[in-house]
């Protein structure tokens, strides 16, 4: 209706403004064009200085710090964490990235899924996955859990902390997304090398989380919660406690000696032997300066693991 009423006004302004507006349109098109061609100058990023790493949120802090340190030497390294360890491995397999960050070893299935990729893992350090509970639960008497108890918790059979000698408080399980290295370490502990986890429990008090910071964040804000999380991530967070497994505390000595069951290696994985920028990157992480980054995030160095 009102469109019709507006016609005369429009027609006059149309004539008056036509020329200048065309100019503006042309100018902006030029600008866009310049931007586009400017960016498309070289089709492929220079592989000797630019590098993409992606994968485990456990390895990511170390990887980011190392990338930051190498910036001054002209190396451009990006770090992403979409999909966790398995995400990194599959992106490496499909040729999208040069370095996969992983908190689990390469499996036969990975090799089978990407037969053209020559996965070469380099261990950069190690880490312990803790079964993390809130301080309230630990203070209520849950200091150590057996394998069967952990299994009961994550399969939704233990629903109140009373059942494992704790306070009268509902259990709230934060499980990790599929593909996360942390979840696989937990599975290996509960079900052994060959076994696999059953389908998720039909429990009210069961949620799924992704990265390590998200896990910590949610554990801290949820009373009675439990979740698997790298012990390095709870340092300085007194409201969270890593319980002992089968009576073994996740101390540095127990992790280094392998007595603590949920110890895992941390890897940077390449297709073939690391070369060019990838080689410089991994060499830096293995160097004394790079190894210092591991304890800074609560992990163990190669030296501590006797490598």
């Amino acid at each position: 209706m009102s469109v019709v009423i507006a016609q005369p006004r429009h027609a006059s302004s149309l004539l008056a403004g036509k020329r200048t507006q065309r100019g503006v349109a042309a100018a902006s098109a030029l600008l866009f064009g310049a931007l586009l061609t400017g960016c498309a100058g070289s089709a492929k990023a220079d592989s000797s200085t630019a590098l993409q790493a992606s994968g485990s949120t456990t390895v990511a802090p170390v990887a980011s710090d190392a990338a930051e340190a190498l910036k001054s030497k002209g190396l451009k390294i990006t770090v992403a964490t979409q999909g966790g360890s398995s995400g990194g491995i599959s992106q490496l397999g499909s040729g999208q990235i040069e370095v996969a960050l992983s908190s689990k070893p390469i499996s036969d299935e990975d090799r089978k899924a990407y037969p053209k990729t020559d996965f070469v893992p380099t261990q950069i350090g190690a880490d312990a996955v803790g079964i993390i509970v809130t301080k309230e639960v630990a203070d209520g008497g849950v200091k150590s859990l057996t394998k069967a108890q952990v299994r009961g918790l994550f399969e939704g059979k233990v629903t109140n902390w009373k059942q494992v000698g704790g306070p009268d408080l509902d259990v709230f399980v934060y499980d990790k997304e599929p593909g996360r290295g942390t979840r696989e370490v937990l599975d290996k502990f509960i079900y052994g090398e060959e076994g696999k986890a059953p389908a998720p429990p039909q429990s009210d008090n069961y949620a799924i989380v992704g990265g390590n910071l998200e896990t910590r964040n949610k554990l801290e804000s949820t009373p009675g919660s439990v979740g698997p999380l790298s012990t390095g991530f709870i340092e300085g967070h007194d409201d969270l406690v890593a319980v002992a497994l089968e009576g073994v505390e996740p101390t540095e000595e127990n992790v280094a000696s392998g007595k603590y069951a949920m110890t895992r290696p941390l890897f940077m994985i390449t297709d073939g032997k690391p070369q060019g920028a990838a080689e410089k990157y991994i060499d830096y992480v293995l160097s004394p300066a790079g190894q210092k980054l591991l304890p800074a995030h609560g992990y163990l160095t190669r030296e501590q693991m006797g490598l």
Partner: protein
Amino acid sequence: MFSVVIALAVLTGYLAIGVASGDVDWLALIGDRTWSPTNGAFGALAMIYGSAVVAVLALVLAVPVGWSAAIALSEYLPPRLAKPLRLSVELLAAVPSIVYGLIGIMMIRPFVAALGDVPGGDSLLAAGIVLAVMIMPTIVAVSVDALAAVPARYREAAYALGLTRREVVRSAVLPQARSGLRAGVLLGLARALGEAIAVFLVVGRADGRLPQSPGDFFSSLVHPGQTLTTKLAGPEPTLVGTSGPHFAALCALGIILLALVAAATAWGTRRAGAGAGAGGGVKRGHRPSVWLRTERDRLATAFRLGALLLPATLLVGMLTILVTRGSSALHPAFWFSSSTGAAGGGVRDQILGTLLLLATTALIALPLGYGAGVLIGAHASPKTARVLETLTVAVGGTPTILLGLAGYVLFSTAMGWGRSWLAGAIVLVPVVVPVIALTTAGRIRSMPGELTEAALALGLSRTQYIRSVVIPYTWPATLTGLLLGLARAAGETAPLIFTATVFFGAPALPSGIVDAPVQALPTHIFTLSQDSGAPEAITQAWGSALVLVLITAVLLSLAVALRNRFEGARRWTT
């Protein structure tokens, strides 16, 4: 038009090939609740349930308030007040969903946790509330348009009969606006069903939980769940490769989602004349009772104006939160320095990345959208135009997470681009093209007949006619459409995460196309808000959100200014 068809073809092709690449047990998929890829079980019932519950919750919360607010805006407030409010509602409708997600994490999750004594607060209810807040502006905006389109003579006739204002609205205005009101609801529903990121952040993503009894139903609302979109936005698409039963099952989820959203969109934008419009007023034999007429009139007035308070409070509240919490964005250094470490420094690179994506998208989408618009508006017969228009609307309503996944499979994996800014820009093109096409087509349709007749009388060829009559006449509308579309694209998160952006370390401007990711504001906010509880990260997230909202607001203000200057009338186009 070609581009719209291509986009649809690529999307459906990706989904169809995906489904064909492994056996999909459709019966199990929609009838079974167990989703456990390691055990070869692909039952999506829990996700379908989650999507349904979340969408219904959002509608139940948003529709009554939205409709009442729209009635108050259109029928009760004087134009001087209503006009700026209408504009604010439109701006609110364009706030990026990632910002709603951030508000969900920071405000609604704790609210639900406190409300139901629910640990954590991640729940279907929280997701429903976030979506309700998100779709309410859409519902209000579309409904206000529908009400404003009712000719004044209906109201005048009704008042002349001595009806109270409530009765006028009820018996003269609402029946006429019914199809428009319904469109608002269905468009809101489509948006709620297709939203991935805002829901992902607060729903809890628990696989396989279904209520066992009616009482259990209410308890399921305050506990974690999973929806179709959150499943697709999770890690599984990056893990499954491009074939096999797991991939096929995920594609099948995509098809279910696409079908639901397309049905809601197509039904919502159906032409008013199709059925409801013609006899709408007479259909209901509603006989007004004389009982307490004035009292009821006053009550209705109070209720409707009261309903307006809620969106208004939302708007003011959101702005206050954004400005107070995002105060870091008010310092110039935040805009012009690059980020350091996980949560320090500024967001210069993220802003540049976002602008690069938008500029590239604009460059590709403009000719495509314009071509499609001219085709629909000037070339096609009315019947074909209607079909094409429905197709275009369907592309515009496509859940962007599906665009992202199709782009991921096509560009990042199959073509070996890895993360690439160009892939991200291309994935955003289908978001922008339909808006340009529809505004342009609408404008062409409104062309006065004399213009065309004069052109034909002068013996212009079809091409000449387009070039010297249609283009000069429509370009303000086209540009308005472009700006509206870009404002929407600026806040897209889900498609970018899979195709174009990384959180850390990408250069401000990429040095190539292949393996050349960028950083962008939506991804930045997503990672910060999801991953970290550290106060500095949260401040950073709010600051980035404020910057993103400001960018969107600038695009929208330009669009509104253009529209007001050249068209003299508003057309709702999203």
